[in-house]
């Protein structure tokens, strides 16, 4: 269907693909976090997404709002580290913005991601250049909006957004961390890619794959 909109099964697939990506990259995420944090990002997020997949297996969700609320609440209770409330807030805001629907068109999906981003900002108080997940997620959401505004189909727009997230993720390497445990390291955080920016790039890439 040319990827103009995302049906509920595709949205579910997005979450599942993200879980797979986190599992496959768990050690890499943990390694990145070991360099500048408390070496738990991969383990924590994998624990959370494993619980999410189990919850989705146990009970299918009737609407986008229900799906993402389930994801958010599960992450909040199972991740443990700062990514729990951050990813939790992200999915809870996405749930609210999605509404009780079974399909999201491009603009609606972009609006939901924007709401999620705003939730992350509200929760983490991060700004551009703080070396956080914001640095990958914000350019991705901006790129998605811009590509959709140019008339690109959702699938293609998400590929553009993924490229923007990757660029943002890579740009965290030279930054000094200003949020989270990494901020205690100050200058020593320079030269390391931010784990949160890395995992959230996987989240955007998973959307591009699932909603293709």
């Amino acid at each position: 269907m040319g990827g103009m909109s995302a049906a509920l099964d595709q949205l579910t697939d997005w979450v599942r693909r993200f879980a797979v990506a986190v599992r496959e990259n768990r050690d890499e995420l943990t390694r990145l976090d070991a360099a500048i944090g408390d070496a738990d990002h991969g383990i924590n997020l994998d624990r959370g997404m494993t619980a999410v997949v189990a919850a989705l297996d146990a009970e299918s969700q009737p609407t986008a709002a229900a799906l993402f609320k389930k994801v958010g609440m599960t992450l909040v209770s199972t991740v443990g580290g700062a990514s729990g409330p951050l990813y939790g807030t992200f999915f809870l805001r996405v749930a609210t913005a999605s509404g009780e629907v079974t399909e999201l068109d491009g603009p609606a999906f972009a609006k939901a991601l924007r709401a999620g981003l705003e939730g992350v900002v509200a929760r983490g108080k991060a700004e551009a250049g703080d070396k956080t997940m914001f640095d990958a997620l914000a350019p991705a959401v901006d790129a998605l909006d811009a590509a959709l505004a140019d008339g690109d189909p959702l699938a293609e727009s998400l590929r553009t957004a993924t490229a923007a997230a990757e660029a943002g993720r890579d740009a965290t390497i030279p930054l000094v961390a200003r949020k989270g445990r990494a901020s205690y390291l100050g200058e020593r955080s320079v030269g390391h890619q931010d784990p949160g920016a890395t995992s959230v790039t996987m989240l955007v890439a998973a959307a591009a794959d699932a909603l293709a």
Partner: protein
Amino acid sequence: MTAPVDTVGTLVGIVVVSHSRALADAAVALAREMVHEGGPRIEVAAGLDETTFGTDAAAIMTAVAAADDGAGVVVLMDLGSAVLSAELALEMLDPDLAGRVVLCAAPLVEGLVAAVVTAAGGADSAAVAAEATDALTAKSTQLGGATAASEAPAGPAADGPTITLTLADPHGLHARPASRLVGAVRGLDADVQARNTSTGSDWAPVASLSRLATLGGLVGHVIEIRATGPDATTALDQLAAAAADSGLTRAVRPVSGAPQQVWAQDAPVRPLGASPGIAVGPARPLRAAAFDFDDTPADDPSDEQARLDRARADAAHAIEAVRDHTVATAGADEAAIFDAHLALLDDPDLAGDAHARIAAGSAAGRAWADAVDIAAARFAALPGEYLRARAADVRAVGDEVLRALTGAGAPAAAPGDGVLVAADLTPADAAGLDPATVTGVVLAAGSPTAHAAILLRAKGIPAVVGAGAHVLDVAAGTVVAVDGATGEVLLDPTPEQADRFAGRAAERADRDRAARARASEPATTRDGTTVLVGVNAGSAADAAAATGADLAGLVRTEFLFLGRDDAPGVDEQEAAYREVAAALGGRRITLRTLDVGGDKPLPYVPAPVEANPFLGVRGLRLALRAPDLFATQLRAIVRTAHATPVSVMFPMVSTVAELAAARAALDAAIAAEGRGVPAELQVGMMVEVPAAALRAAAFAPHVDFLSIGTNDLTQYALAAERGNDAVAALADPLDPAVLALVAATCRGAGDDVLVAVCGEVAADDAAAALLVGLGVRELSVAAPAVAGVKQSVRDIDLAAAAALADQALRAPDADTVRALTAG
């Protein structure tokens, strides 16, 4: 420490959020020892399970609900995700319950013990949270080595070393030295308190500028300061040094027999004339406009707090910029007031009050404005005029934050005629001033070469910049005398001084009258060479104001393009250009095609973000990349040229190829109009790039005239941006290097191509002879300067001017050139 059993149902509940279940359980056990029976409900939300570290917002919600008996809940957290999860839990809770929850920043163990004890006593949630937050003080006191007993109450009452300061500063403990005291204790692990023993005031924390100033310390008062904590002795040593160093005490500023001079009667320090002319009138300190901030209560207090934090950071940047500028131009002493402003911005009382208001549901703007009002009112109620005036500092800082918060524009001046007094003016501020009401301008900072100064000259408003921070203290209505040529500023002048200014003003008025009387006569040198004197216009009104102008030597067409969402069409542009020509009575107008760059992006012209827009896509470079926009403007110019004498000129030309491309676009526009080449159309270019000046001969065959933009030519030649005060002094248009480029342009132009100067330097009376001596035959200046420049030309002897130019070209530096022209 007894907890009445019968009130247990109404006690404030406590929730402990930690990464570790074991840590939380142990902390709770420790705290429970403090209350032997009863005590508050204490719930734990810690770890993902018994052994896995982590925090869980859902578990925190459950714990809060369980801990609440209707009297509210205080939540204590360890770090990191504990804080994020607690905030998320608060967001997801029933708003009714969430409204009774306080997230407390106290350290976990000490805070928990204090919170449990206080809650057991039946205190409300705010008091429980406050006691928890203060819990660290007792520990600091103990570690400070003082003999504080274990039951010493938390807070200021504590033994420790003390010093006393006798205030010698005539203004008492005012903002600038007070901010030095705040700075002296910042970062130290000490609780430092001060009181005014002369008035019997309460103790106030030295870390809080606003509280410190409320001591009402006047000259002669004795201030007692005491400190506890590990760094107590260091704190007092540094305070004594800061007090002496800032002149607050007698230590380094011995009082002589004569009374100390108040600054207002002192001669000005290092002010610079920025716009010639004399003004004597009441001071009009710049006041902020009312801010239009969103008053609706916050959905999420943390969002509002984040907005306020961002705005405070932005405001700090803005104040730092002014301070750095002042340090560079007037020295660190003058800049100290801005440090005081920065300290006020960081003031824990002010920030804490705003934070509490946000937590209680206010929007960021309302919370900050109210907190500022209260702090300002506290100053306003103090004894002593000087201290009362510090309310203005609080408001200035408050306004800076509100401006950042609301995105509001520059402040507007207070109503009433007079001399505007301000820290600095943005170009926007300067552009908005009305010469009919603002008779003069005095800026604490600023540079004569900044855009604001250029705008003031264009408006003919006498101005002095770099007058020093003290001018900001002037009370509204105080008479101020300003000489914008010499840079003199007198506050509250004596009658003799006022007479002197009036005499000077009369002399100048005589010369101006003579110039105006002959304004419409041609400007011809003594030996009969006519020099055209034009006006630089940014609007029809500028042109209309130019009494005697032979032409408009520069019409900045940007006025049509800036501040809108779409480009003006051919008809609109033609109408505007014809209006300028009509305002000049049909004399020639020189229309410069759109001259913008990345520093002033237009929403309808795609432009990349550039690291250095002044060396990027601007002027003609931009026009050639936006061919539709350029074609539309050229068609409007061609149509105008069919109706009235028009010269067109292209800005920022570097190569002959660019000029050829521009001429081709012009030819296309002429062809598109289909009426042939307008009979009186002349074509020229700006010479702003040194490459163009050096190769003028290569351009000359393609143009009727060359117009030197000395402002840009100077900044490119000397690699010194004129808006950057640190290097602005280098960017002197009378630098021999710039003059050499002017000479090269005149040589390259030959006999058939007219060379004009349309930069600021053309309006400099002394520079007229020099420029004419170099070969310039048209000077285009701001409207108010036209008549005066014509009069200067009439005094020129061409042979003498050529000799002067020759000398200037061989001069070692700009100062020598200036001396030559003055002689």
